[in-house]
């Protein structure tokens, strides 16, 4: 019964999204206040029905209704409650419904916030309605989560053990808040193009909270994904330039460029058409990412969908959304040309350089991810584009970006004094020197590239600190750039040290034997069998030694899950906050001997801490801005009355 209610809710939501699309776009015209009210109502109704549909699916998982195919595929009665819920989005169908749920949240937020005036809001709702309708058609025709099994099995197959983990469970909602948030800024950009003329000028201000939320969610989502890879997978790395990871990195790079370019548009009216184009590009990357992951065109750890009709449907959707927006852009953008005026020494120039470098970085990821697929499809030739390719481009690009970064927020709009700015930032060179010397003293071996990278991080963090100090007393939002930039510096510290100074040991150990890795001495005490709720495990006991004294005990594990018989290695990580020790239990070599891998990653936690700091910068920009906006008298209604 709940399945049918869910399916019916989706149909109602589709009807309402079509109403929203029509009424919303009609409401872009001045006189159509009625259409605007209809679009608003349709948006709220759409939201309610999507929540109902999603609720119906969650309920089916909670009560283990195995008559629904995806529930039978991804859940069991034994599964812990948390993983019954998160299993909802562990499969293609459920994750597309989660996408819709997030889209419904953003649609309701656009309708309720009414940013940028009633006409812009209405047109933006119209665009959201079109996107929602396209996705709902996709769900209803190729990916319905409410398909039945007859007869229903007694027990489900169970969730992939790799996904029975809090990090893996929270990763998709986080990323979807990012991906879909970019659909909101896309909707505002397209709305501005539909409106044309003066009313469209404030679109980037209207869309900024959505861009910020999307960017923060992407930053956290990417960090969460990489952290999950780090602690789950049985080797030392945390980022593999895997196509699924790249699918989330591409929208992040464009969203970062967009946030910066939109600043110049909002504050100075500069780069109007470029910012519009970036908003379109950012959501295009979300769609391409979705295509990569959902079409099964690439197969990797994270991909679980493979059905060509779906891929084809998404390709058509990309073609219509991106093609339509670009056509609209080509038609309308010439009328938007403002033609900014600024000196070459100015913040505008700095933002342009930022955008050029980020777009080149995007090209690297885009080409590196899609080129092998295209080459295979066109010529049948198989090549691999792996980490070394990306490193060749990303290291110089990001080092250059980070060297220039402290300048950006210190330069004035329109015209700036480069020499004075350089003098202001001079103490950051001291911070770079301190960082380099610290690395020289502490690190062994002394590897020049590593020490250089640490110095760059010192420069960036120092430069950001100077920026923050110079803004003392300003409102919170003024510190956003300093915090976010410093966050990248913190991440760089972690990335550089783990890349350059990671040590590892791969050994075969028997009971009582010792091994050393980095500064640690470990003693293997053997392996015991354990019974989990839905798995059987081999649990090793390993003592961390200081001389003859045991200072800590660690338990890396190897599990075999009852459903499907899949095995999973559960790593043991011990962190001091500045250094991680990670243990991975390998194969049973017989007679109590096991292979064991140990990795020591200096400063590893800073990689993800830095990402959190970056997101905090975004939050400051968002909330500092909302609070700054609140006490202002509302000029909007008067302006609207005058316009009407």
């Amino acid at each position: 019964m709940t399945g049918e209610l869910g399916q019916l809710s989706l149909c109602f939501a589709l009807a309402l999204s079509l109403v929203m699309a029509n009424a919303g776009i009609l409401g872009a015209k001045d006189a159509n206040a009625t259409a605007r009210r209809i679009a608003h109502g349709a948006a709220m109704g759409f939201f309610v029905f999507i929540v109902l549909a999603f609720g119906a699916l969650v309920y089916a998982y909670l009560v283990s209704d195995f008559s629904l195919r995806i529930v039978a595929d991804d859940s069991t009665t034994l599964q812990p409650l948390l993983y019954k819920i998160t299993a909802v989005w562990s499969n293609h169908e459920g994750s597309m419904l989660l996408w819709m749920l997030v889209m419904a949240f953003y649609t309701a937020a656009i309708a309720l916030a009414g940013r940028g005036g009633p006409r812009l809001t209405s047109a933006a709702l119209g665009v959201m309605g079109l996107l929602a309708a396209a996705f709902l058609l996709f769900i209803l025709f190729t990916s319905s989560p409410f398909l039945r099994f007859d007869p229903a099995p007694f027990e489900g197959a169970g969730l992939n053990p790799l996904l029975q983990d809090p990090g893996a469970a929270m990763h998709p909602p986080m990323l979807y808040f990012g991906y879909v948030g970019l659909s909101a800024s896309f909707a505002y950009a397209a709305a501005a193009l539909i409106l044309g003329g003066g009313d469209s000028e404030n679109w980037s201000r209207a869309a900024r909270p959505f861009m910020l939320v999307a960017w923060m969610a992407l930053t956290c989502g990417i960090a969460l994904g990489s952290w999950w890879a780090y602690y789950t997978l049985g080797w030392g790395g945390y980022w593999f330039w895997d196509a699924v990871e790249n699918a989330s990195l591409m929208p992040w790079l464009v969203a970062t460029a967009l946030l910066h370019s939109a600043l110049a548009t909002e504050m100075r009216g500069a780069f109007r058409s470029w910012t519009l184009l970036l908003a379109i590009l950012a959501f295009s990357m979300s769609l391409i990412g979705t295509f990569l992951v959902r079409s099964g065109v690439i197969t990797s750890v994270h991909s679980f969908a493979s059905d060509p009709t779906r891929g084809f449907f998404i390709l058509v959707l990309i073609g219509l959304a991106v093609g339509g927006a670009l056509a609209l852009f080509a038609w309308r953008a010439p009328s938007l040309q403002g033609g900014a005026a600024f000196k070459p020494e100015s913040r505008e120039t700095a933002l342009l350089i930022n955008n050029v470098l980020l777009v080149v970085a995007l090209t690297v990821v885009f080409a590196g991810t899609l080129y092998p697929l295209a080459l295979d499809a066109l010529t049948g030739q198989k090549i691999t584009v792996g980490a070394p390719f990306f490193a060749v481009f990303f290291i110089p690009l990001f080092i250059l970006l980070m060297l220039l970064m402290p300048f950006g927020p210190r330069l004035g709009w329109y015209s700036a004094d480069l020499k004075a700015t350089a003098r202001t930032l001079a103490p950051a060179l001291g911070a770079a020197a301190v960082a380099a010397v610290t690395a020289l003293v502490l690190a062994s071996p002394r590897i020049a590239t590593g020490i250089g990278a640490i110095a760059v991080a010192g420069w960036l963090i120092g430069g950001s600190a100077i920026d923050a100090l110079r803004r003392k007393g300003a409102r919170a939002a003024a510190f956003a750039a300093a915090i976010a930039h410093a966050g990248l510096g913190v991440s760089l510290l972690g990335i550089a040290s783990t890349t350059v100074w990671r040590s590892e040991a791969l050994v075969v150990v028997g009971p009582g034997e010792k091994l050393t890795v980095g500064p640690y001495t470990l003693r293997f005490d053997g392996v015991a069998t354990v019974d989990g709720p839905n798995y059987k495990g081999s649990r090793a006991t390993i003592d961390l030694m200081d001389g003859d004294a045991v200072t800590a005990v660690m338990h890396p594990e190897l599990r075999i899950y009852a459903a499907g018989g899949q095995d999973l290695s559960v790593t043991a990580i011990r962190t001091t906050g500045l250094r991680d020790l990670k243990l991975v239990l390998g194969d049973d070599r017989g007679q109590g001997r096991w292979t064991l891998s140990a990795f020591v990653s200096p400063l590893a936690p800073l990689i993800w801490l830095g990402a959190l700091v970056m997101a905090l910068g975004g939050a400051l920009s968002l909330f500092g801005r909302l609070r700054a906006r609140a006490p202002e008298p509302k000029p909007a209604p008067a302006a609207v009355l005058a316009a009407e």
Partner: protein
Amino acid sequence: MMTKAFRPKRLLLALLLATNTAIAAPLPDAFSDPATEARAHALQRQLRCPVCKGQSIDESGADLAADLRHLVRQQIAEGRSDDEIKAYLRARYGDFILMQPPLESATWLLWLAPFLVLAGAGGVAWGVISRAKKAQESNDSKEIADF
């Protein structure tokens, strides 16, 4: 030659008594020289595990990856250079096995794309900046005229 003192039973007993200080054995084909071991790891990271999803043979737990690691280490032990070992594997598995695609007729566009975009975007940015400069100069001269 096995003398009486080194009979297996005695050896086992000695091992049992000495467990307190016994050291875990490195994997059978690990190099005792740290520099060679590091070189092997670096080389393994540049080779893709052919049956895995984008992992190098250094990271992969697949049997084939273990075999390839063994092969790489054997060839290093035989004194072959990194390039020789890569060429040997490339001849057997094709370009697919190289984590970094070689520059050749099928991949020049891949390698060139970032530079093309850099030139294009850089050119556009240059144009925007010089137009903005002209506009700014005319603004300033207008202000002076107004003044």
